[in-house]
């Protein structure tokens, strides 16, 4: 079935996707993080000793998507036009995307749903970029979409982190490079969204960029920067244009929900054997 048909009929798309995926993947769509076994690495009933040595995938909530409408409050972001600032565009775009994702069965967590977002325990303190990353990381979502807007260029610009990838997620991950284990998945998510936008005939540009706080996210993370559809910057607020982009992204998320692969957790290296143990071994094997 062509992708465009799936986008026109979201319910049919959901049925098609659910019917085509194995049941083991469906069981991972729970509110609590459930590790998805990687093929051939984890036995169905692993012994207790194996459970401590075999790397386990990082938990992932496949039904949760985090949306971060960038800026807010005193931080208005870039100026789109004389009467329009970035923070208002990102919030409006996030609301559209949230409604479409919710209708497709996702639980959507937004880092802000009003002009300004404040810390829960200090209502007068605005959320920092690190706080936003913390909100996202606590959800263990299947995708984190950082929404930005610009008057430069046209269409949609997609960016992922440009830090060097690592093979897995270590137990103690530096905050400023927490995305390293997820860079590969972020790239796959970016390509998924790019394909969907391309099929929707939205002008597209993609690349790598160091955008705060994407490097601190422990989830597949993509920066989605919305630009005007034409030469006039005012077209960025066009409802039909935003709806077309939102539907393409939401459709891509339905497919991505079952393709995402969480990286394995890198176990800490065990300390070297004690000298007494090695001495005892030497005595037993003279």
């Amino acid at each position, binding site marked *: 079935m062509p992708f465009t048909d799936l986008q026109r009929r979201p319910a049919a798309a959901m049925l098609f996707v659910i019917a085509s995926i194995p049941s083991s993947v469906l069981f991972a769509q729970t509110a609590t993080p459930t590790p998805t076994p990687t093929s051939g690495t984890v036995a169905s009933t692993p012994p207790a000793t194996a459970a401590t040595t075999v790397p386990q995938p990082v938990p992932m909530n496949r039904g949760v998507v985090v949306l971060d409408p960038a800026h807010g409050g005193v931080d208005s972001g870039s100026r789109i036009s004389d009467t329009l600032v970035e923070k208002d565009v990102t919030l409006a775009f996030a609301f559209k995307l949230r409604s479409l994702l919710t209708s497709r069965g996702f639980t959507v967590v937004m880092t802000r749903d009003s002009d300004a977002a404040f810390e829960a325990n200090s209502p007068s303190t605005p959320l920092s970029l690190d706080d936003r990353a913390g909100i996202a990381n606590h959800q263990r979502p299947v995708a984190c979409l950082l929404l930005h807007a*610009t008057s430069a260029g046209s269409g949609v610009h997609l960016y992922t982190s440009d830090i060097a990838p690592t093979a897995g997620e270590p137990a103690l991950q530096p905050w400023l490079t927490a995305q390293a284990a997820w860079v590969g998945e972020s790239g796959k998510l970016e390509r998924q969204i790019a394909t969907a936008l391309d099929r929707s005939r939205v002008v597209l540009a993609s690349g790598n960029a160091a955008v705060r706080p994407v490097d601190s996210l422990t989830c597949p993370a993509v920066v989605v920067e919305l630009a005007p559809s034409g030469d006039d910057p005012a077209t960025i607020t066009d409802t039909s244009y935003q709806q077309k982009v939102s539907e393409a992204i939401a459709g891509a998320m339905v497919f991505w929900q079952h393709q995402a692969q969480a990286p394995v957790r890198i176990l800490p290296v065990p300390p070297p054997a004690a000298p007494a143990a090695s001495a005892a071994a030497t005595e037993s094997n003279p």
Partner: protein
Amino acid sequence: MIQRHQRIVFWCLVVCILGMGLLLFWERQRARDRVSQLADNTPIDAPYTTTESITMDLASDDDGTITAQQRQIALPSEVTARARALLDHLAAEYAQPGSVHPLSPGAMVDDVYFVPLPVVGYSIDAGAKPSADGNTPTSLVPPDPDALQPQSPGDELAVINLRGSFVNAHPSGVEVEQLTLQSIIGTLHANLPQIEQVRFLVDGQPRETLAGHADLLRLYMVRDTTTTAAGH
């Protein structure tokens, strides 16, 4: 016939005029001395006269590319002054009318510092006794194992202290901010190969982003950032 009291008034006025003149002259001398004391005549950059061919990685907002272009510029030989002069020339390029990556005019950089890699430090050793000369003992802090490690010995970390006025006036947007950072990193890479990593400060303090998007907290690996063929 001039009356006596009129003569007295006349000479009093003459004395006042002369007194005022002397006072004015004395105050002028004082002000001139004060200004000359405040003037900092310390030489900052080594004198340089000959121009040399350097490569500048110039950004273009039109197509989001970085292009290497040659320029004939006179630069100091001292390495930190050279780095600062390079970046100020870069800012001047972008401030010119018709620039394809327009930035507000003004100096970009306050200072550039070079730190040998790997970065080590010293911490106060609270447990040790003070030395005989009264200095507090310190112990060597080893390099952070999680930090980016140097790829070759002898390379350096460049700490670029950007001016707050430059950062505050920088246009906001993912691409435009990214292009500015890539242009800085690429220009340093092309002309100062001993720089391996770059860290940014703004007015001596860490800042999260350049203008709301590009990360200024991270450590950037210096590399060739050009995305198109070199032009002239």
